[in-house]
Protein backbone atom coordinates (compact mmCIF):
# COMPACT_ATOMS: atom_id res chain seq x y z
CA UNK A 1 0.00 0.00 0.00
CA UNK A 2 1.34 3.38 -1.04
CA UNK A 3 0.96 6.67 0.84
CA UNK A 4 -1.06 8.35 -1.88
CA UNK A 5 -3.55 7.29 -4.56
CA UNK A 6 -5.94 8.97 -6.98
CA UNK A 7 -8.85 7.17 -5.36
CA UNK A 8 -9.26 5.48 -1.99
CA UNK A 9 -12.23 3.10 -1.75
CA UNK A 10 -13.52 2.15 1.68
CA UNK A 11 -15.35 -1.16 1.64
CA UNK A 12 -14.93 -4.30 -0.46
CA UNK A 13 -18.54 -5.19 -1.25
CA UNK A 14 -19.99 -4.95 -4.77
CA UNK A 15 -20.14 -1.13 -4.63
CA UNK A 16 -16.53 -0.67 -3.60
CA UNK A 17 -15.32 -3.33 -6.01
CA UNK A 18 -17.13 -1.76 -8.96
CA UNK A 19 -15.75 1.65 -8.04
CA UNK A 20 -12.19 0.34 -7.72
CA UNK A 21 -12.37 -1.65 -10.94
CA UNK A 22 -13.88 1.21 -12.95
CA UNK A 23 -11.31 3.70 -11.66
CA UNK A 24 -8.39 1.32 -12.29
CA UNK A 25 -9.61 0.62 -15.82
CA UNK A 26 -9.52 4.35 -16.43
CA UNK A 27 -5.85 4.32 -15.53
CA UNK A 28 -6.17 5.83 -12.06
CA UNK A 29 -4.19 4.60 -9.08
CA UNK A 30 -6.66 3.02 -6.67
CA UNK A 31 -6.61 1.37 -3.28
CA UNK A 32 -9.57 -0.60 -1.93
CA UNK A 33 -9.64 -1.37 1.78
CA UNK A 34 -11.95 -3.86 3.50
CA UNK A 35 -12.19 -3.97 7.28
CA UNK A 36 -13.13 -7.62 7.41
CA UNK A 37 -10.47 -10.29 7.10
CA UNK A 38 -12.15 -11.83 4.04
CA UNK A 39 -13.98 -10.47 1.03
CA UNK A 40 -17.52 -11.83 0.73
CA UNK A 41 -18.01 -13.01 4.29
CA UNK A 42 -20.12 -12.85 6.31
CA UNK A 43 -22.93 -12.58 3.75
CA UNK A 44 -25.56 -9.97 4.64
CA UNK A 45 -27.90 -10.58 1.75
CA UNK A 46 -30.77 -12.63 0.29
CA UNK A 47 -28.65 -12.70 -2.89
CA UNK A 48 -31.31 -12.02 -5.55
CA UNK A 49 -30.75 -9.83 -8.61
CA UNK A 50 -32.49 -9.38 -11.97
CA UNK A 51 -30.80 -11.04 -14.92
CA UNK A 52 -30.61 -8.07 -17.22
CA UNK A 53 -29.56 -5.81 -14.40
CA UNK A 54 -26.62 -8.01 -13.46
CA UNK A 55 -25.52 -8.30 -17.06
CA UNK A 56 -25.00 -4.56 -17.25
CA UNK A 57 -21.86 -5.19 -15.23
CA UNK A 58 -20.67 -8.75 -15.63
CA UNK A 59 -21.36 -11.89 -17.67
CA UNK A 60 -23.10 -14.55 -15.61
CA UNK A 61 -20.84 -17.35 -14.42
CA UNK A 62 -22.07 -20.62 -12.91
CA UNK A 63 -19.30 -20.39 -10.29
CA UNK A 64 -21.23 -17.69 -8.46
CA UNK A 65 -24.81 -18.34 -9.50
CA UNK A 66 -26.62 -20.58 -7.02
CA UNK A 67 -29.93 -20.69 -8.85
CA UNK A 68 -31.69 -19.39 -11.93
CA UNK A 69 -35.18 -18.11 -11.28
CA UNK A 70 -37.95 -18.08 -13.85
CA UNK A 71 -41.00 -17.28 -11.80
CA UNK A 72 -42.08 -15.54 -8.65
CA UNK A 73 -44.96 -16.12 -6.28
CA UNK A 74 -46.55 -13.78 -3.75
CA UNK A 75 -48.60 -15.41 -0.97
CA UNK A 76 -50.97 -13.39 1.23
CA UNK A 77 -52.39 -14.34 4.66
CA UNK A 78 -55.55 -16.13 3.39
CA UNK A 79 -53.38 -18.34 1.19
CA UNK A 80 -54.20 -16.60 -2.10
CA UNK A 81 -51.16 -16.65 -4.28
CA UNK A 82 -50.14 -14.55 -7.20
CA UNK A 83 -47.97 -16.56 -9.53
CA UNK A 84 -45.85 -14.68 -11.99
CA UNK A 85 -45.01 -17.03 -14.77
CA UNK A 86 -41.80 -17.36 -16.76
CA UNK A 87 -43.05 -15.60 -19.88
CA UNK A 88 -44.06 -12.59 -17.82
CA UNK A 89 -41.07 -12.51 -15.56
CA UNK A 90 -39.19 -9.29 -15.90
CA UNK A 91 -36.42 -7.91 -13.84
CA UNK A 92 -37.81 -8.76 -10.44
CA UNK A 93 -36.68 -12.34 -10.85
CA UNK A 94 -33.40 -13.59 -12.14
CA UNK A 95 -30.45 -15.05 -10.34
CA UNK A 96 -29.79 -16.02 -6.77
CA UNK A 97 -26.08 -15.44 -6.35
CA UNK A 98 -23.46 -17.00 -4.16
CA UNK A 99 -22.22 -13.74 -2.70
CA UNK A 100 -19.17 -15.29 -1.07
CA UNK A 101 -17.83 -16.14 -4.52
CA UNK A 102 -19.42 -13.26 -6.39
CA UNK A 103 -17.92 -10.55 -4.16
CA UNK A 104 -14.48 -12.13 -4.53
CA UNK A 105 -14.85 -12.22 -8.30
CA UNK A 106 -15.64 -8.50 -8.34
CA UNK A 107 -12.69 -7.60 -6.13
CA UNK A 108 -10.51 -9.93 -8.20
CA UNK A 109 -11.52 -8.00 -11.30
CA UNK A 110 -10.67 -4.72 -9.56
CA UNK A 111 -7.25 -6.12 -8.63
CA UNK A 112 -6.71 -7.40 -12.17
CA UNK A 113 -7.46 -3.94 -13.49
CA UNK A 114 -4.67 -2.62 -11.29
CA UNK A 115 -6.29 -1.66 -7.99
CA UNK A 116 -4.45 -2.32 -4.73
CA UNK A 117 -6.49 -4.33 -2.25
CA UNK A 118 -6.06 -4.53 1.51
CA UNK A 119 -8.20 -6.68 3.81
CA UNK A 120 -8.51 -6.45 7.58
CA UNK A 121 -7.81 -2.76 7.07
CA UNK A 122 -10.20 -0.28 8.61
CA UNK A 123 -10.65 3.42 8.05
CA UNK A 124 -10.58 4.96 11.54
CA UNK A 125 -10.88 8.63 10.54
CA UNK A 126 -10.99 10.83 7.48
CA UNK A 127 -8.05 13.10 6.72
CA UNK A 128 -9.68 16.52 6.62
CA UNK A 129 -8.07 19.74 5.39
CA UNK A 130 -10.27 22.83 5.69
CA UNK A 131 -13.32 20.61 5.53
CA UNK A 132 -12.14 18.77 2.43
CA UNK A 133 -11.70 14.99 2.58
CA UNK A 134 -8.13 14.16 1.57
CA UNK A 135 -8.04 10.45 2.30
CA UNK A 136 -8.23 8.36 5.44
CA UNK A 137 -6.32 7.16 8.43
CA UNK A 138 -6.20 3.38 8.12
CA UNK A 139 -5.55 0.75 10.74
CA UNK A 140 -4.16 -2.67 9.93
CA UNK A 141 -3.34 -5.12 12.72
CA UNK A 142 -2.56 -2.31 15.15
CA UNK A 143 -0.51 -0.31 12.65
CA UNK A 144 -1.83 3.09 11.65
CA UNK A 145 -1.13 4.69 8.29
CA UNK A 146 -2.39 7.82 6.57
CA UNK A 147 -3.32 7.35 2.92
CA UNK A 148 -4.15 10.45 0.91
CA UNK A 149 -6.30 10.72 -2.21
CA UNK A 150 -8.13 13.58 -3.95
CA UNK A 151 -11.26 11.39 -3.95
CA UNK A 152 -12.38 8.95 -1.25
CA UNK A 153 -15.33 6.69 -2.04
CA UNK A 154 -17.26 5.50 1.01
CA UNK A 155 -18.70 2.08 0.20
CA UNK A 156 -18.84 0.95 3.79
CA UNK A 157 -22.32 -0.51 3.82
CA UNK A 158 -25.29 -0.23 6.13
CA UNK A 159 -23.01 0.25 9.15
CA UNK A 160 -21.23 3.10 7.36
CA UNK A 161 -19.38 5.55 9.58
CA UNK A 162 -17.09 7.29 7.13
CA UNK A 163 -19.59 9.74 5.60
CA UNK A 164 -20.83 10.63 9.08
CA UNK A 165 -17.28 11.46 10.17
CA UNK A 166 -17.13 13.78 7.16
CA UNK A 167 -20.25 15.65 8.25
CA UNK A 168 -23.05 13.88 6.35
CA UNK A 169 -25.99 12.72 8.47
CA UNK A 170 -26.36 9.03 7.66
CA UNK A 171 -28.69 8.04 10.51
CA UNK A 172 -31.52 5.81 9.30
CA UNK A 173 -34.84 6.70 10.98
CA UNK A 174 -35.65 3.66 13.11
CA UNK A 175 -38.97 2.99 11.34
CA UNK A 176 -37.13 2.96 8.02
CA UNK A 177 -34.70 0.19 8.72
CA UNK A 178 -35.75 -3.34 7.85
CA UNK A 179 -34.38 -5.58 10.55
CA UNK A 180 -33.64 -8.99 9.07
CA UNK A 181 -32.71 -12.58 9.79
CA UNK A 182 -32.04 -15.39 7.34
CA UNK A 183 -31.25 -19.09 7.34
CA UNK A 184 -29.66 -20.95 4.52
CA UNK A 185 -31.87 -24.02 4.90
CA UNK A 186 -31.03 -27.29 3.29
CA UNK A 187 -32.85 -30.59 2.75
CA UNK A 188 -36.19 -28.84 2.12
CA UNK A 189 -38.90 -29.28 -0.49
CA UNK A 190 -39.02 -26.19 -2.68
CA UNK A 191 -39.67 -25.16 -6.24
CA UNK A 192 -36.02 -24.69 -7.21
CA UNK A 193 -36.64 -22.00 -9.84
CA UNK A 194 -39.33 -19.96 -8.08
CA UNK A 195 -38.85 -17.21 -5.55
CA UNK A 196 -41.66 -16.99 -2.99
CA UNK A 197 -42.69 -13.92 -0.99
CA UNK A 198 -44.99 -14.30 2.03
CA UNK A 199 -46.84 -11.17 3.15
CA UNK A 200 -48.92 -10.48 6.25
CA UNK A 201 -48.91 -8.54 9.47
CA UNK A 202 -48.88 -11.64 11.65
CA UNK A 203 -45.95 -13.36 9.99
CA UNK A 204 -43.91 -10.32 8.90
CA UNK A 205 -45.24 -6.93 10.03
CA UNK A 206 -44.45 -4.15 7.54
CA UNK A 207 -42.17 -6.49 5.67
CA UNK A 208 -42.09 -9.95 4.13
CA UNK A 209 -40.62 -13.41 4.33
CA UNK A 210 -38.67 -14.66 1.34
CA UNK A 211 -37.75 -18.10 0.08
CA UNK A 212 -34.99 -17.75 -2.49
CA UNK A 213 -33.74 -21.06 -3.92
CA UNK A 214 -30.03 -21.79 -3.61
CA UNK A 215 -30.20 -25.19 -5.29
CA UNK A 216 -32.59 -28.11 -5.75
CA UNK A 217 -33.24 -28.54 -2.02
CA UNK A 218 -31.76 -25.46 -0.41
CA UNK A 219 -32.93 -21.87 -0.04
CA UNK A 220 -32.28 -18.57 1.66
CA UNK A 221 -35.30 -18.33 3.95
CA UNK A 222 -35.38 -14.93 5.54
CA UNK A 223 -37.44 -12.11 6.96
CA UNK A 224 -37.28 -8.34 7.07
CA UNK A 225 -39.65 -6.38 9.32
CA UNK A 226 -40.10 -2.99 10.92
CA UNK A 227 -38.37 -2.43 14.27
CA UNK A 228 -41.63 -0.77 15.37
CA UNK A 229 -43.16 -4.22 15.61
CA UNK A 230 -40.24 -5.78 17.48
CA UNK A 231 -39.79 -6.56 21.14
CA UNK A 232 -38.80 -9.42 23.39
CA UNK A 233 -39.97 -12.66 21.73
CA UNK A 234 -40.87 -10.67 18.60
CA UNK A 235 -37.48 -10.18 16.98
CA UNK A 236 -36.91 -11.06 13.33
CA UNK A 237 -35.33 -14.36 14.36
CA UNK A 238 -38.40 -15.23 16.47
CA UNK A 239 -40.78 -14.57 13.57
CA UNK A 240 -38.52 -16.52 11.24
CA UNK A 241 -38.26 -19.48 13.60
CA UNK A 242 -42.06 -19.67 13.76
CA UNK A 243 -42.31 -19.58 9.97
CA UNK A 244 -39.65 -22.23 9.53
CA UNK A 245 -41.32 -24.48 12.13
CA UNK A 246 -44.57 -24.20 10.13
CA UNK A 247 -43.22 -24.50 6.60
CA UNK A 248 -39.89 -26.31 6.79
CA UNK A 249 -39.91 -28.23 10.08
CA UNK A 250 -37.27 -30.65 8.84
CA UNK A 251 -35.02 -28.06 7.22
CA UNK A 252 -31.45 -27.92 8.41
CA UNK A 253 -29.84 -24.51 8.72
CA UNK A 254 -26.25 -24.38 7.52
CA UNK A 255 -26.01 -20.63 7.98
CA UNK A 256 -27.80 -18.13 10.20
CA UNK A 257 -27.26 -14.46 9.41
CA UNK A 258 -28.80 -11.19 10.48
CA UNK A 259 -28.64 -7.65 9.19
CA UNK A 260 -30.24 -4.30 8.59
CA UNK A 261 -31.48 -3.00 5.24
CA UNK A 262 -32.14 0.70 4.63
CA UNK A 263 -35.72 1.21 3.38
CA UNK A 264 -35.52 4.97 3.86
CA UNK A 265 -34.97 7.69 1.30
CA UNK A 266 -31.40 7.97 0.03
CA UNK A 267 -29.01 10.37 1.77
CA UNK A 268 -29.82 14.05 1.18
CA UNK A 269 -26.44 14.36 -0.46
CA UNK A 270 -24.02 11.66 -1.52
CA UNK A 271 -21.04 13.94 -2.16
CA UNK A 272 -18.87 16.34 -0.20
CA UNK A 273 -15.51 17.96 -0.96
CA UNK A 274 -13.30 15.00 -1.88
CA UNK A 275 -15.95 12.42 -0.88
CA UNK A 276 -18.49 10.24 -2.65
CA UNK A 277 -20.88 7.79 -0.98
CA UNK A 278 -22.25 4.70 -2.75
CA UNK A 279 -24.50 1.68 -2.16
CA UNK A 280 -26.03 0.90 1.24
CA UNK A 281 -23.84 3.61 2.78
CA UNK A 282 -25.72 6.09 0.56
CA UNK A 283 -29.01 4.35 1.49
CA UNK A 284 -29.82 3.61 -2.14
CA UNK A 285 -31.17 0.10 -1.56
CA UNK A 286 -34.69 -0.39 -2.93
CA UNK A 287 -37.12 0.75 -0.20
CA UNK A 288 -39.83 -1.68 -1.34
CA UNK A 289 -37.92 -4.90 -1.95
CA UNK A 290 -34.78 -4.22 0.06
CA UNK A 291 -32.75 -5.29 -2.98
CA UNK A 292 -29.41 -3.57 -3.14
CA UNK A 293 -26.87 -5.44 -5.28
CA UNK A 294 -27.67 -3.67 -8.53
CA UNK A 295 -28.04 -0.26 -6.92
CA UNK A 296 -24.71 -0.50 -5.16
CA UNK A 297 -22.92 -1.69 -8.31
CA UNK A 298 -24.55 1.07 -10.35
CA UNK A 299 -23.61 3.83 -7.92
CA UNK A 300 -20.11 2.41 -7.39
CA UNK A 301 -19.38 2.43 -11.10
CA UNK A 302 -20.93 5.84 -11.69
CA UNK A 303 -19.04 7.38 -8.78
CA UNK A 304 -15.72 6.18 -10.19
CA UNK A 305 -16.55 7.49 -13.66
CA UNK A 306 -17.38 10.93 -12.33
CA UNK A 307 -14.35 10.88 -10.02
CA UNK A 308 -12.10 10.07 -12.97
CA UNK A 309 -13.26 13.07 -14.97
CA UNK A 310 -13.05 15.34 -11.90
CA UNK A 311 -9.49 14.19 -11.21
CA UNK A 312 -8.59 14.79 -14.87
CA UNK A 313 -9.94 18.32 -14.58
CA UNK A 314 -8.18 18.89 -11.28
CA UNK A 315 -11.33 19.74 -9.34
CA UNK A 316 -12.67 17.26 -6.78
CA UNK A 317 -14.79 19.73 -4.84
CA UNK A 318 -18.37 19.03 -3.87
CA UNK A 319 -19.77 20.98 -6.83
CA UNK A 320 -17.70 19.02 -9.36
CA UNK A 321 -18.43 15.64 -7.75
CA UNK A 322 -22.15 16.44 -7.52
CA UNK A 323 -22.50 15.35 -11.15
CA UNK A 324 -22.54 11.86 -9.62
CA UNK A 325 -25.34 12.78 -7.19
CA UNK A 326 -27.45 14.34 -9.93
CA UNK A 327 -26.84 11.48 -12.37
CA UNK A 328 -27.93 8.64 -10.12
CA UNK A 329 -30.99 10.56 -8.92
CA UNK A 330 -32.24 11.03 -12.46
CA UNK A 331 -31.27 7.52 -13.57
CA UNK A 332 -33.78 4.71 -13.94
CA UNK A 333 -32.51 3.41 -10.60
CA UNK A 334 -33.03 6.77 -8.90
CA UNK A 335 -36.56 7.06 -10.26
CA UNK A 336 -37.35 3.49 -9.18
CA UNK A 337 -36.22 4.27 -5.63
CA UNK A 338 -38.46 7.32 -5.53
CA UNK A 339 -41.45 5.38 -6.84
CA UNK A 340 -40.87 2.30 -4.70
CA UNK A 341 -40.52 4.43 -1.59
CA UNK A 342 -44.06 5.70 -2.13
CA UNK A 343 -45.36 2.22 -2.85
CA UNK A 344 -43.73 0.90 0.33
CA UNK A 345 -45.28 3.68 2.38
CA UNK A 346 -48.68 2.59 1.04
CA UNK A 347 -48.21 -1.13 1.54
CA UNK A 348 -47.13 -0.92 5.16
CA UNK A 349 -50.52 0.65 6.01
CA UNK A 350 -52.51 -2.33 4.69
CA UNK A 351 -54.39 -4.68 6.97
CA UNK A 352 -54.28 -8.39 6.17
CA UNK A 353 -57.87 -8.18 4.87
CA UNK A 354 -57.00 -5.44 2.40
CA UNK A 355 -53.90 -7.29 1.34
CA UNK A 356 -55.95 -10.42 0.67
CA UNK A 357 -58.51 -8.46 -1.32
CA UNK A 358 -55.95 -6.62 -3.39
CA UNK A 359 -53.97 -9.68 -4.33
CA UNK A 360 -57.18 -11.61 -5.04
CA UNK A 361 -58.20 -8.86 -7.46
CA UNK A 362 -55.23 -9.48 -9.67
CA UNK A 363 -54.50 -13.15 -8.99
CA UNK A 364 -56.27 -14.39 -12.12
CA UNK A 365 -54.98 -11.98 -14.65
CA UNK A 366 -52.08 -12.44 -16.96
CA UNK A 367 -49.65 -9.65 -16.66
CA UNK A 368 -47.91 -9.05 -19.94
CA UNK A 369 -44.84 -8.03 -18.09
CA UNK A 370 -44.10 -8.43 -14.43
CA UNK A 371 -42.68 -5.37 -12.79
CA UNK A 372 -43.59 -3.27 -9.80
CA UNK A 373 -44.99 -0.75 -12.26
CA UNK A 374 -47.38 -3.11 -14.07
CA UNK A 375 -48.42 -4.71 -10.79
CA UNK A 376 -49.37 -1.37 -9.30
CA UNK A 377 -51.14 -0.29 -12.47
CA UNK A 378 -53.25 -3.45 -12.41
CA UNK A 379 -54.08 -2.99 -8.73
CA UNK A 380 -55.41 0.47 -9.45
CA UNK A 381 -57.41 -0.61 -12.51
CA UNK A 382 -58.97 -3.55 -10.71
CA UNK A 383 -59.93 -1.74 -7.53
CA UNK A 384 -61.93 1.34 -8.58
CA UNK A 385 -63.69 1.47 -5.21
CA UNK A 386 -60.38 1.90 -3.48
CA UNK A 387 -59.41 4.82 -5.64
CA UNK A 388 -59.05 7.18 -2.73
CA UNK A 389 -56.84 4.84 -0.76
CA UNK A 390 -54.86 3.96 -3.81
CA UNK A 391 -54.24 7.58 -4.67
CA UNK A 392 -50.76 7.46 -3.21
CA UNK A 393 -50.07 4.42 -5.36
CA UNK A 394 -51.47 6.10 -8.43
CA UNK A 395 -49.30 9.12 -7.84
CA UNK A 396 -46.27 6.90 -7.52
CA UNK A 397 -46.53 5.68 -11.10
CA UNK A 398 -47.93 8.77 -12.79
Amino acid at each position, binding site marked *: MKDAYDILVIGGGPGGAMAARTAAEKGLSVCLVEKR*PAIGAPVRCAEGIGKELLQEFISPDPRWISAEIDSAKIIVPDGTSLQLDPQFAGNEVGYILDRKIFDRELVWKAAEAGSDVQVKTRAVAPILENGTVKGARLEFCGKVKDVTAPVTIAADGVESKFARWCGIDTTIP*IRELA*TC*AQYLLTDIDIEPHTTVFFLGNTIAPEGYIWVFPKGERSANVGIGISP*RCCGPGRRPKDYLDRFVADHFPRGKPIECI*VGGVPVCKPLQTTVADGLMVVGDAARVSDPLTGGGIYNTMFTGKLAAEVAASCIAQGDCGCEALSVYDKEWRKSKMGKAIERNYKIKEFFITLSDEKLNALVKSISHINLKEFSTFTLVRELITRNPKLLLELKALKDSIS
Partner: protein
Amino acid sequence: MMLTIHREICGYCGACVSVCPEGALELIDAYLEVDEKCISCGICTKACPLGALEVDHEGRL
Protein backbone atom coordinates in the same frame (compact mmCIF):
# COMPACT_ATOMS: atom_id res chain seq x y z
CA MET B 1 -21.99 1.98 30.49
CA MET B 2 -25.77 1.94 30.40
CA LEU B 3 -26.08 0.13 27.08
CA THR B 4 -25.48 -3.57 27.55
CA ILE B 5 -24.28 -5.59 24.58
CA HIS B 6 -25.00 -9.28 25.01
CA ARG B 7 -22.04 -10.53 23.01
CA GLU B 8 -23.21 -14.13 23.14
CA ILE B 9 -26.32 -13.03 21.20
CA CYS B 10 -24.87 -10.31 18.92
CA GLY B 11 -24.70 -11.28 15.24
CA TYR B 12 -22.32 -8.36 14.50
CA CYS B 13 -24.45 -7.17 11.58
CA GLY B 14 -24.28 -3.44 12.17
CA ALA B 15 -28.03 -2.75 11.98
CA CYS B 16 -27.76 -0.87 15.29
CA VAL B 17 -24.90 1.29 13.98
CA SER B 18 -27.07 2.59 11.15
CA VAL B 19 -29.86 3.90 13.41
CA CYS B 20 -27.74 5.38 16.21
CA PRO B 21 -28.45 9.13 16.18
CA GLU B 22 -25.25 9.91 18.06
CA GLY B 23 -22.81 7.82 16.04
CA ALA B 24 -21.86 6.10 19.27
CA LEU B 25 -21.73 2.58 17.88
CA GLU B 26 -19.18 1.08 15.56
CA LEU B 27 -18.79 -2.39 14.15
CA ILE B 28 -15.17 -3.52 14.05
CA ASP B 29 -15.28 -6.77 12.13
CA ALA B 30 -17.09 -9.05 14.59
CA TYR B 31 -16.93 -6.69 17.56
CA LEU B 32 -19.53 -4.04 18.33
CA GLU B 33 -18.05 -1.06 20.11
CA VAL B 34 -20.00 1.61 22.00
CA ASP B 35 -18.35 4.87 23.03
CA GLU B 36 -19.06 7.71 25.44
CA LYS B 37 -21.36 9.47 22.95
CA CYS B 38 -24.08 6.90 23.82
CA ILE B 39 -27.10 8.62 25.42
CA SER B 40 -28.93 5.37 26.26
CA CYS B 41 -31.84 6.35 24.01
CA GLY B 42 -32.56 2.69 23.28
CA ILE B 43 -33.18 3.13 19.54
CA CYS B 44 -30.54 0.52 18.73
CA THR B 45 -32.26 -2.07 20.92
CA LYS B 46 -35.26 -1.98 18.55
CA ALA B 47 -33.13 -2.39 15.43
CA CYS B 48 -31.30 -5.50 16.61
CA PRO B 49 -32.60 -8.62 14.79
CA LEU B 50 -31.59 -10.79 17.74
CA GLY B 51 -32.30 -8.70 20.82
CA ALA B 52 -28.65 -8.45 21.79
CA LEU B 53 -28.86 -4.86 23.02
CA GLU B 54 -30.42 -3.68 26.24
CA VAL B 55 -30.63 -0.31 27.96
CA ASP B 56 -30.46 -0.40 31.71
CA HIS B 57 -33.01 2.27 32.57
CA GLU B 58 -32.23 2.09 36.26
CA GLY B 59 -28.79 3.36 35.46
CA ARG B 60 -30.15 6.56 33.92
CA LEU B 61 -29.84 9.86 35.67
